[in-house]
């Protein structure tokens, strides 16, 4: 793991991975969307509305997955001071926030026809909203300092503290009565979802994850470049000050 904390090695590796992750994202999203919208059956209870699930559920997984990734990067940055870990945590935050928002939005659109309400303050929905606020707080905090080092450190601590919300989201539907139904896929006794609907769901989830890898690489590169520019500028200012 420590081997990959080197920015030069990351850039070399990123170059190899990027075309693959882009291809996987494109193919599995195309196939996933086709099966989700056209090639899969309607649900016995919900009819055609069930198709919202193929975006909603993978988006929710992404929201939680990105947060876990962000927390792990933050821990690596705090403990081992890996220069890259901070940048990758920072690069993951907007992706996670976007997918969490997408999850809440599609959930709301799905809730109205099925449950009869856009929103309910039940434990699952509320903890997911808290996740969105944690992302927003992280993004605000990481940019709130003139010294990026301090911003990274404060935001990393916030990311770790907020990580306690992740198990709460996952098991909220089992611990308390909620309007949201319990887990369909990741649960004891195997998925409660027909294979014809599980396959497009997993394809979409794979596509979203591959998309995250692409964005992580692109934003990671940009962050490394930005840091290099900052170092060069500082050196120039320093040199100019000495020349005077």
């Amino acid at each position, binding site marked *: 793991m420590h081997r990959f904390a080197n920015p030069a090695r990351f850039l070399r590796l990123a170059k190899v991975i990027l075309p693959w992750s882009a291809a996987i994202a494109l193919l599995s999203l195309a196939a996933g969307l086709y099966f989700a919208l056209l090639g899969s059956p309607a649900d*016995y209870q919900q009819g055609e509305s069930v198709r919202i699930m193929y975006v909603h559920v993978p988006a929710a997984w992404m929201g939680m997955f990105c947060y876990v990734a962000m927390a792990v990067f933050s821990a690596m940055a705090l*403990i*081992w001071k890996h220069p890259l870990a901070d940048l990758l945590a920072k690069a993951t935050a907007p992706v996670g926030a976007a997918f969490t928002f997408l999850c809440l939005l599609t959930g709301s659109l799905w809730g109205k026809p099925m449950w009869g309400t856009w929103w309910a303050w039940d434990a699952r929905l509320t903890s997911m909203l808290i996740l969105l606020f944690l992302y927003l707080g992280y993004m605000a905090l990481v940019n709130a300092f003139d010294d990026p080092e301090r911003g990274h450190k404060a935001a990393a601590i916030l990311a770790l503290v907020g990580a306690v919300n992740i198990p709460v989201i996952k098991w909220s539907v089992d611990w308390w009565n909620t309007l949201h139904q319990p887990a369909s896929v990741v649960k004891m006794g195997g998925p409660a979802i*027909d294979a014809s609907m599980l396959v497009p769901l997993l394809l979409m989830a794979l596509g979203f994850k591959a998309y995250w890898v692409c964005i992580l690489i692109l934003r990671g590169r940009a962050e490394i470049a930005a840091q290099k520019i900052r170092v060069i500028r500082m050196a120039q200012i320093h040199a100019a000050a000495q020349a005077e």
Partner: protein
Amino acid sequence: MTRKQRRLYFVLLGMLALGGAVALVLTAISDSLVYFYSPTDIITQRIPEGRRMRVGGLVEEGSVAKDGKTVIFKVTDLSNTIPVAYAGILPDLFREGQGVVVEGRMEKGGQFQASEVLAKHDEKYMPKEVADALKKSGQWNDGKKN
């Protein structure tokens, strides 16, 4: 112990303490985190009349009746039932045997006056043909509270 190790243990201990604290708080306020009560909760806890709350369960088979604009049905958790009256638009998924959450007040005489009815569905997703086949072969697991 190196500084890295010290930081590692510090982070691990911190996470453990934080997780423990959150677990304790959530356990302590667990009662207010539930979105609805079951009919059994309502009957055993003797919740005062007139307090606004939510009751959840299944719509009892054969209990739905229309009285003018008002729909009357019973919400059950398979051990206790609460009679509910509601005047308004029902969600599409509302039907007998279906999960439901009703919001409103308990009136004198044990009748629940609902101001909002929300449908609750289970975690099963399958095409209609599969559901029909399961019901036909008797493998449909329906009595389960969702």
